[in-house]
């Protein structure tokens, strides 16, 4: 489901936002959002100081709850979006991705080709320095982390996982994946939540990714660091890092493009914002248009966004007409 992304303009802290949006990993490579009752239980288990969230505090995020630009989508079509998203596979979340899903998505992604190559380099290096045990520990900790993500109430397991990754770093600090995992743990809304520590770990991960020339990993680190820069109101840095990520990563992570458009929108640079939004819509998933329409940052360029939707609509309409005409079918007002 497409949900309103976090924005600095929302009347909520980032930590509280994360607390309201818990996901659990499903063992068949899927994920599920936790309801209010569930997230109170989970948050309590992970942070003794947690104060229960009440229904009225919950920020509305479902796109259906918002009035969307009529040039983009009309109310009757909202149900269709749900159907389209249902058809998307997990690896192709597209616009349905949200930052609080990052650790689950990341662990599932680790079975991808890009990751296997990167991990193989680390495995070889550790074997070479007689530190094969460290690699085994990293893999075991990652598996345990996935187990925790399937049952996030098990805080003891999270502590064990965190300790495991920390031990790995003590033994060998050059494994970017370990730093990345630790960065994710610090990003989770638990007792360990610490954005500074998280940023430090992602920065370390980036450093070591570049050392082993894993561009995909480096791009992911830049994506995360850019997000932290945005949270810290350093939009210029967020833009700079996102641009580097796009440059390095050969255009496979749509979120990098969307966030870049969002960062530009937040500083009212509509030209650049629409340039990257257009790219993510056309190249990856047209539902990003809906995501942008409900994002607070894009409201900064509301008029231009509306004009863009009109232009987009006319273009797509024309494409549909042409394609049908090629098949001998004439629609709309042309048919007389």
């Amino acid at each position, binding site marked *: 489901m497409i949900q309103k992304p976090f924005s600095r303009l929302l009347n909520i802290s980032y930590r509280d936002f994360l607390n309201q949006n818990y996901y659990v990993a499903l063992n068949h490579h899927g994920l599920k959002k936790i309801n209010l009752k569930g997230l109170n239980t989970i948050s309590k288990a992970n942070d003794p100081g947690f104060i229960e969230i009440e229904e009225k505090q919950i920020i509305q995020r479902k796109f259906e709850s918002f009035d969307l630009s*009529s*040039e*983009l*989508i*009309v109310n*009757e*079509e909202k149900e*269709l*979006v749900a159907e*389209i998203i249902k058809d998307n596979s997990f690896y192709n979340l597209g616009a349905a991705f949200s930052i609080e899903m990052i650790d689950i998505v990341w662990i599932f992604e680790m079975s991808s080709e890009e990751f296997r190559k990167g991990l193989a380099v680390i495995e070889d290096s550790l074997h070479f320095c007689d530190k094969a045990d460290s690699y085994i520990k990293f893999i075991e900790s990652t598996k345990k982390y996935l187990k925790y993500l399937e049952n996030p109430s098990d805080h003891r397991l999270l502590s064990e996982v965190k300790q495991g990754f920390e031990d790995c770093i003590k033994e060998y600090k050059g494994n970017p994946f370990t730093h990345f995992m630790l960065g994710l743990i610090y990003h989770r809304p638990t007792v360990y939540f610490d954005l500074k520590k998280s940023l430090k770990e992602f920065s370390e991960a980036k450093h070591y990714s570049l050392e082993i020339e894993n561009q995909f990993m480096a791009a992911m680190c830049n994506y995360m660091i850019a997000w932290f820069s945005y949270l810290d109101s350093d939009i210029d840095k967020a833009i700079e890092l996102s641009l580097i990520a796009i440059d390095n990563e050969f255009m496979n992570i749509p979120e990098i493009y969307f966030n870049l458009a969002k960062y530009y929108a937040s500083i009212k640079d509509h030209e650049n914002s629409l340039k990257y939004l257009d790219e993510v819509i056309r190249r990856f998933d*047209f539902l990003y*248009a*809906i995501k942008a329409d409900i994002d607070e940052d894009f409201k900064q360029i509301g008029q231009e966004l509306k004009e863009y*939707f009109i232009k*987009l*609509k006319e273009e*797509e*309409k024309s*494409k*549909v007409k042409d*394609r*049908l*005409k*090629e*098949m*001998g*079918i*004439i*629609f*709309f*007002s042309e*048919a*007389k």
Partner: protein
Amino acid sequence: MISFLPYIYIVRDKKYSDESADLIKKIENLTSCDSAFGYFACGETIHLLSDLLKKNNAEYSKCYKVNFLAFNNLKEIIGWELIKPFTDFESEIDGLFKDIEELLEEKSYYVNSQSKSKLLSAEKIIQDYIDNSHLVDKKLRVEFHSKLNQIKKNLLSDSLISVLIRSNDLIALEEIFTKNEENFQKYYKVILERFEPVKQSFARLKPYFSNKEAYSIEEQFDNVEYILQSQDFDSFEEAEEILNMAEFKLTEIVGEKRLVISNNLKKELNKLKTFVWIEDWIVLKGKMEELIEESNRTGHLDKLNFDSFGIEHKKAEKKEMIYDFIKTLENSEGQLVKAVLDELKGFFDKEKSRKDLEELQSRMLMIESEGKANGCTDPKQYSKLLRYLKFVSVIVLLALSMSAFFINQKKNAVHFSAKGQKYADIVETMIYAQKKNNEEINIDKIRRKISVSSDELKIISFDNEVVIEYRNKIYKKNIRKK
């Protein structure tokens, strides 16, 4: 509102039509709100529709269009109204046409495709009818049957007028028939009778033609074929001209080829003069001239060669006879043998007949008997001559086996090259094994394991790569890292 372009949207089959309508409806619904989302969202459905229509178009073409066009073509060949009472041919074809029409009218590609076999039957029946009736020309054929239709209609009425008209119609029908028969004999039959043999002759001679020449003639044949199918006597004259041209071209090219081949044969035969007995050569020459003459007469080139002449056998026969004679010299007197051998040398580079050899033999026998009568008994001279005799025999044998030697030499080169590389691989493997086991490299031990003599195989170096010399050729192989 939707409209369809009938020349692009060609959905006949009900199954495709329903599926397509569903998808179009879906697209219509998705785009009905005129929102950007709607247009984006229908992308997948458009893709499905496009795939469906592609599949439909392929089946439409294969099952319907091809058969529909073939049917129209057949109907055009008939070209007159099929009315009762039918002739045998009309009765048969009318039944088939009705079946085909029904099959093609169905909104099912599967049913449409079943018209194929009926079309083939109809095509055969029509062709048989044309062949038998000689009504090759479409215009005359239609004219003939239209007139026949008139007669059929008149048959229904029994008035005086109809009888009178009928007799005129019959005369007209007869005139058409006669005209057709004349034209058929004059144009069609003549061409048909000439065309097949020319084509066959070309097919036989094609290997002697260059691609360009063959293409040019085939092109002419295609033109003739096309005209023959045009069902128009007027254009058959043109076919005759083309056929004349093609035949002329064929004869011209064949003539040139024959000249080249004949000249080559003559040259080859001249070279044979010293290799076979001259009387055999004369026979071969006669045979060759016969072949050339036959080829001139028949136009065939495929038999214009020495394949049936048994030349190798004749060459061997001359050599064997000379060799047998040399063998008989072993016990003869030295001076005489030398003289005979000198003369025998001429048998290999001059034209000689069997008679020449017989004369030499009898001359020798005569001299020998005279010599024995004079008592020539010097053993030294005899042994010297015997050695000379053996030497000459060896030379002859060498000449005989020269060609075989060269062929073997070539085969050996390939064989020994592979073997040399194999030895380099073996040596490298053994060195690698010693290195891997941290042993000191013992090259003598390795050399001992290879049974080839040291004259044939030498290990030259083995630092980073193995270098060996085998049968005076160097072979190398990089040694693997430990």
